[in-house]
């Protein structure tokens, strides 16, 4: 008996070793064999939340590059939207005979790029923003500027590396817009008071405008593509000129937070403008 106890005292560490090794092998074998292994689920229950919060913390530091990737993905998606293209049909006859014939071709009308706002004013009477791309990056005058939420403004001045944006928050800003579902066209202006609110003018009084209706660009200006979101109707007033309504519009763009903006170029702008110029001369 004494011998046995002595033996156990001597061999105790070997027994512990054997038990631990067998335990590891069992864990290893089971975690290889079954995904639904109970121990690994129990461990996951403890470890999971810790790892999740850790990953969240690490993710915060990687938000910058991820944002850039998402912006580029957004541009790829926006380039393929329907309002980016002109539908061209070679002849009326082919259209009549074969509605989905190969003669129908899409011509790109608008193209996107992006930039970052490096300076902006929001609370002045004449606000402006400066973005970090210029003529070297292919930025030209009269490109439309969009924020992730909606329409932001128009490029007015371009230097080689930077460009100035005239946001909606500028007394000279004019954007032709349409209210849906009433489908009435008007002009969006800003009156220098509230950076969240603009006015939609020249909407006929008979039109049924409700609070909360959406305001979109209508594409008449050839700067903005058709159907970009501007904001929602906040208030409907009968204007001084009694035949028109004056509509307060809650702007979708949060100018205080704008950092990444999308720039839209109308590829046929000069062509359209030359036609307009001819018309003016007459």
């Amino acid at each position, binding site marked *: 008996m004494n011998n046995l106890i002595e033996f156990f005292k001597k061999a105790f560490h070997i027994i*512990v070793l054997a038990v631990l090794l067998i335990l*590891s*092998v069992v*864990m*290893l074998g089971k*975690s*290889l064999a079954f995904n639904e292994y109970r121990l690994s689920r129990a*461990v996951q229950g403890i*470890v999971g939340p810790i790892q999740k919060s*850790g990953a969240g913390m690490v993710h915060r530091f990687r938000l910058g590059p991820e944002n850039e990737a998402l912006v580029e993905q957004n541009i790829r998606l926006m380039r393929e939207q329907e309002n980016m293209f002109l539908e061209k049909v070679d002849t009326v006859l082919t259209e009549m005979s074969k509605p989905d014939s190969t003669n129908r071709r899409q011509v790109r009308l608008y193209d996107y790029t992006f930039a970052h706002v490096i300076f902006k004013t929001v609370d002045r009477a004449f606000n402006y923003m400066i973005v970090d791309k210029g003529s070297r990056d292919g930025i030209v005058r009269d490109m439309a500027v969009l924020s992730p939420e909606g329409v932001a403004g128009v490029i007015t001045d371009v230097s080689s590396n930077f460009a100035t944006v005239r946001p909606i928050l500028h007394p000279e800003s004019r954007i032709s817009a349409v209210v849906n579902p009433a489908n009435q066209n008007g002009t969006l202006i800003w009156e220098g008071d509230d950076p969240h609110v603009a006015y939609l003018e020249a909407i006929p009084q008979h039109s049924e405008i409700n609070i909360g209706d959406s305001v979109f660009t209508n594409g008449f200006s050839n700067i903005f593509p058709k159907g970009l979101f501007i904001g929602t109707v906040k208030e409907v007033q009968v204007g001084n000129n009694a035949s028109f309504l004056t509509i307060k519009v809650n702007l979708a763009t949060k100018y205080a937070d704008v950092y990444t903006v999308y720039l839209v170029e109308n590829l046929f702008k000069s062509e359209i403008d030359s036609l307009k110029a001819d018309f003016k001369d007459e």
Partner: protein
Amino acid sequence: MNNIISNILRFLVFLIVQIVICQHVCLFGYMTPALFLLALFLLPLELPLSLQYLIGFASGFVVDAFAHTLGVSSFSCTLMMFLRPFIVRFLNGTNFNRFESIERPMPGVKDFRWIFLYTLILTSIYQVISVLLGTMTFRNFGHTLLVMIGNTLFTVFVVLCVEYIFYNKVRNES
């Protein structure tokens, strides 16, 4: 007493560093350091053997739990702790007695050659076993071998750096 607390603290720090940082390092796509081994290396040799095995198993288990490889590190660490006295005996030569003196495998107590060989042998034991258990196949053995060697070299490098930066004061004291 002071020694126990410093050892426990060391384990906590190295396990956290391992889980938070080292586990996510992937140099050249396959080299991951196992810095927490340093805490095991520095464990006093006069500790009861069964306790050493338990500590090895527990730290391996914690690392496993966060790496989703249950059993791999715990097996390798336990085996490594089992082999550690033999390695030390081998490195010390024939006249080594476990109960003769307080053996602390630290820089200052031991010279660089001893520390380097000790770290290299124990690390390669750990990495060979854990990589083999982790892949569980001999297919594409060239890559497995590469991972073993890469992991071992990287771990030895990191462990020696940390050891000589943070545990080099002992020499001045004694």
